[in-house]
């Protein structure tokens, strides 16, 4: 099948793929590269389940075309743990039971990691505003906020 040839870097690995011009980066990740960690919730940039980092910026991968990733750096949830060792945020999400169905979790983790890198000691309000682009219909958010606060504490050392 013909398509646009794209070379990009995903989680530090050089990756090449062919995609159609109207295919989103989320479609490419999930359907072509079998990286199904990023989820599709709304597909219109409202829910944040597809959050990835693109050249160091938090974005919804459903609002990025696959072709746009050419020459850029993508970071997904698959790159968050260091081998078998979970990132502190991942561990704290489990400890605090900050998830139920889990569909929003990868997006929350990516967004929370970005938040803590920019602001290692956020207030509860800053966490809630910072994660306003991620929707969760199970937890009521409280446990997510607690998990992020706890992870922030640990990461500050």
């Amino acid at each position, binding site marked *: 099948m013909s398509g646009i040839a794209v070379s990009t870097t995903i989680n530090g690995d050089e990756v090449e793929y062919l995609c159609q011009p109207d295919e989103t980066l989320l479609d490419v990740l999930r359907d072509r590269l079998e990286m199904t960690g990023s989820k599709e919730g709304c597909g219109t940039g409202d829910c*944040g389940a597809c959050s990835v980092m693109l050249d160091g910026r938090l*974005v919804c991968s459903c*609002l*990025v075309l696959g072709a746009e990733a050419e020459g850029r750096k993508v970071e997904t949830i698959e790159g968050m743990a260091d081998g078998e060792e979970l990132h502190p945020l991942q561990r704290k999400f489990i400890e605090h039971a900050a998830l139920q169905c889990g569909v929003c979790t990868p997006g929350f983790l990516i967004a929370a990691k970005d938040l803590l890198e920019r602001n290692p000691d956020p207030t509860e309000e800053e966490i809630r505003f910072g994660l306003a682009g991620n929707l969760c219909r199970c937890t009521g958010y409280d446990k997510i906020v607690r998990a992020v606060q706890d992870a922030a504490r640990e990461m500050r050392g």
Partner: protein
Amino acid sequence: MRYERPDSVKDAVALLAGAKENAYLLAGGSDLLVRMRGGYIEPELIVDIKSVKGLDEIVKNDKGFRIGASVPCVAMGEHKALSKAWPGVVEASNLIGSKQIQGRCTIAGNLCNASPAADSVPALVAAGAKAVIAGPSKKRRVAVEKVVTAPGRTSLEKGEMVEAILLDKPSPRSGDAYLRFIPRTEMDIAVVSAGVALTLDAKGLVKSARVALGAVAPTVVLVKKAASAIIGTKLEDDALEKMAEACAAACNPIDDKRGTIDFRKKVSGVLAKRAAKIAYERAGGK
């Protein structure tokens, strides 16, 4: 659908001008991709301008700031000099969508999407911002309020694109502010919004002002009578009241589930008053 990624404005414009139909510019994509997915548009050609050199930069010079068409709004908030010079514009730009949307959306796109409720536009209009429009035969600069002509429509001609937004270096003793009403605390579309920019004289009286309202008419409205109501004053209550009346009179809103006509008219004045007070304080007024 064809996807093109030109590396110059000239090539981008040539692609847009040469397209038979349905050619769309892709900057941040936070409106375009949503409309594609919703089936509202079926582009034949998408011209991605993120590889065009210079359009991804905020340039500060002695005249002011040039914000390239592919600069994501989050980068405006990170730009210290811009945030200091035009805090209202930066606040408005940083209210658009979530952090995820902020990483993509642009003010040039917010303008060209031509929504009456666009957050950055009233702030830009109040600030007297200009759009640099590149076209097949010439470049032109127009006041931002001349770009949008109706909901979803702009004055851009075939082959034209906004390549940057220009903001002047503020005069001494100037300040701006933007406020919007939404029924939630974040991630919502303005029901009413107001941008105010003003400059004070040495005595602290308002020397010049611009007041712009969003979401209360088919396009953002620059309300000259609201500005004249506060010029020559220190924003005393009666001056602010006159300004609020002028705002309400300038509204031509719709009644919808998000706000009634009466509500929008009233709130336009309330927000303009509050924004004027913030701008006044930022200008150093007491």
